[in-house]
């Protein structure tokens, strides 16, 4: 078993060798194809998945290794991975709720990045109030026929499969009668249309299911228990899956420190920026501590409780602040080399615009505050719905 420090060192050396220098300098130039090719090579190496259980080819070394993995990738300039939805959200849910044959069919290709996933939760009338979802799955011989629409589905255009929440029991409302289905995105009747985002990109899509047949063995967890399966997935999304983003913040602040270190700043602006940078660094470090704490609690089977919601809330707000700050610095510095300035400006503008999603997805900040207030502090239900 490799010691954590050796693992970190070895992975850093490997990444220095394989990550193109251009990725660090101009992350905006990375294409999805290049990233995916890089990922699929990475997933075949000894560095990936040591935290996974031995049953799926891991070494069961625990979440600390996963945090280190994400941290080293962020330091090396690797952007958010395309396979992250499947590996960070679907995989733990599959290992928890899947039948042996589902695990056999889906775990290995998800881990190797050959099978890509999207998450079919939100609908136009079911955002924060997720239990209001209306997509129907009618029972037919040998499976289900799915009819309905999902929206704000990340990476739908690349995904091979979608893990979707649907109503398998007609006439039910709210949390009852929901199931999670694993839907092949190439089935007849599946259509996705890209949605233009505020940052100009179209990573989001609307997904339409027009009488899509899904076989019986593609239901994850017992029929009708989809709500608790989904809550487990959201718990992963608010804890482990967030590690990558939390540790990425520290690397991003390193970019701001570099900009400030080599910049000619007018007047007292540099001093003001240093104060903002210092506050952001403290928050980034605390987020790493929170990730380590959650990892420790998960490994010791201590319930994560509301720490997941707290961490998601704190991270999304801290990251938005950092992105706005980085963009301001990038547009106020002047260095000797104009190409570097342009690279930095593109990078930070993209980050600022895309970061606006972070307080909305995976439970809005308002929903996280409801969770902290009701589950954490035991406050009574009053004038707003619970999540």
């Amino acid at each position, binding site marked *: 078993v490799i010691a954590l420090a050796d693992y970190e060192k070895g992975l850093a050396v490997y990444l220095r060798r394989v990550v193109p*220098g*251009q990725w660090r*300098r101009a992350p905006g130039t990375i294409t999805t194809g290049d990233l995916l090719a890089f990922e699929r090579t990475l997933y075949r190496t000894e560095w990936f998945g040591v935290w996974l259980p031995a049953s799926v080819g891991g070494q069961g070394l625990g979440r600390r290794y996963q945090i280190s993995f994400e941290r080293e990738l962020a330091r090396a300039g690797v952007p958010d991975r395309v396979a992250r939805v499947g590996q960070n959200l679907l995989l733990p849910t599959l290992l928890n709720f899947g039948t042996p044959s589902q695990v056999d069919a889906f775990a290995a290709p998800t881990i190797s990045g050959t099978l890509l996933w999207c998450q079919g939760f939100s609908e136009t009338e079911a955002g924060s109030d997720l239990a209001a979802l209306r997509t129907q799955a009618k029972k037919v011989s040998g499976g289900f026929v799915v009819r309905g629409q999902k929206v704000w589905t990340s990476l739908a255009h690349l995904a091979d499969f979608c893990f979707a929440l649907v109503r398998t029991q007609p006439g039910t409302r709210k949390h009852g009668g929901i199931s999670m289905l694993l839907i092949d995105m190439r089935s007849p009747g599946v259509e996705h249309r890209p949605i233009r985002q505020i940052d100009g990109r179209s990573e989001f899509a609307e997904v339409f299911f027009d009488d899509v047949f899904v076989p019986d063995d593609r239901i994850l967890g017992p029929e009708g228990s989809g709500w608790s399966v989904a809550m487990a997935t959201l718990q992963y999304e608010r804890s482990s899956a967030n590690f990558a983003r939390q540790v990425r913040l520290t690397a991003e*602040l*390193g970019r701001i*420190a*570099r900009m*400030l*270190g*080599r910049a000619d700043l007018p007047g007292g602006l540099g001093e003001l920026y*240093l*104060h903002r*940078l*210092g*506050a952001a*660094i*403290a*928050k980034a*470090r*605390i987020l790493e*501590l*929170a990730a380590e*704490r959650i990892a420790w609690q998960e490994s010791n089977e201590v319930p994560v409780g*509301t*720490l997941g919601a*707290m961490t998601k*809330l*704190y991270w999304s707000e801290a990251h938005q602040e950092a992105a706005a700050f980085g963009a301001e610095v990038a547009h106020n510095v002047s*260095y*000797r*080399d104009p*190409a*570097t300035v342009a690279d930095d400006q593109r990078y930070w503008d993209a980050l600022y615009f895309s970061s606006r999603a972070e307080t909305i997805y995976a439970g809005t900040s*308002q929903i*996280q*505050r*409801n969770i*902290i*207030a*009701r589950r*954490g*502090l*035991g*406050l*009574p*239900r*009053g*004038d*707003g719905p619970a999540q």
Partner: protein
Amino acid sequence: VTEFASSDEQRTIVEVVRRVAREAGRSGGAVLSELHARGLVDVEAAEPGADEAGIPIPLWTSLLYGIAFETGAAGEHAATLRLLRALSIWRTPASRDVRSRIADGEFIDVAFPQIGGRLVSGQLHDDGSLTCAGTLACLRSDGSASQIIVPVRAASAGGILMVVLDTGDPSISMGLHPGFGPHAATVDLILDGTRVPEARVLGYLDPDGSAGPGMEAFAACELAVCTELAAMTRAVLDRTVQFTKTRMQFGRPIAEFQAVQHELANMALLGEMALLSVLALARALEESDPAARSLVSVAKYACGEYATKIVEAAIQLHGGIGFTWEAGLQHYLVAVTEANRTLGSPTWHRRWLADSAVQAAPEAAAPQPLVVSSPQSRP
């Protein structure tokens, strides 16, 4: 409170300390002597040459946490408790003497510096003695201590020297000011050519260093302050949650209003983040982790900044009785304010973090040479 302590033993200590603190009123000194009498705390100097590990960090932080949770840490002796760990890091005769006096129940006050603030200046002589002059603001106690530990900036020595003075020394005078909030008074010390022999020099506080006993002593004192801040945020949150569940307006408890719930959720969030930073700092100091220095600044920034926000929000949610002395929040507001003025302020600490990040940035000193293969590159 149990979230703070990572072992059953620590939880027990916190509970005992809280009970003793409640019985002893707001006096940290009374708590200390009570605990000492019960054999729970041993601050006595070890024999010279013996192991001087000092008070164990889990025990000490549990003690500080319990007192601050219960009393707001504003009482006299609070400063002495904050110095306990630093005293065992400084292996000087003066430190041994001070520890045995504390163990005997003597009241020795400490004036911690506000970094960057006004300090007594000292001139170092060849025989190791100092001549000190200047004014030092704000002892929290009433000036009745027999001895006072004072920070001195000596031009020829790095860091801040901590020295022990007799309050009876004719070259020392005190100026009493009316206090604010629950403090009856604050005390200014005026030193006029006070001679301090080498044997009264305790050791250094070094806020700028990254290692060494001066940094460790500084970090230990900051850990104490941050532990108190974390305890107070928790105490104030607990009180406010309880209050909002019972305070009726518009025919229902105000805790049912989402505006109130979200404010409480923010308080809980910030308190939890501050707590994580303190626990990490305590662990780093126990394990002599080189990351300890940067964690000091992370923790002081978070604890100081967030404790202030939390107490202010608590006052807001308590309404009128939060502003008056009825709810008892005045103790916490004063104590948090005082803790933020002890050693580096949250602002000083975030500036320190930024400086060390800019210095550590690999390309900070000179722009990185451009890569030839890039089409945009120029020599």
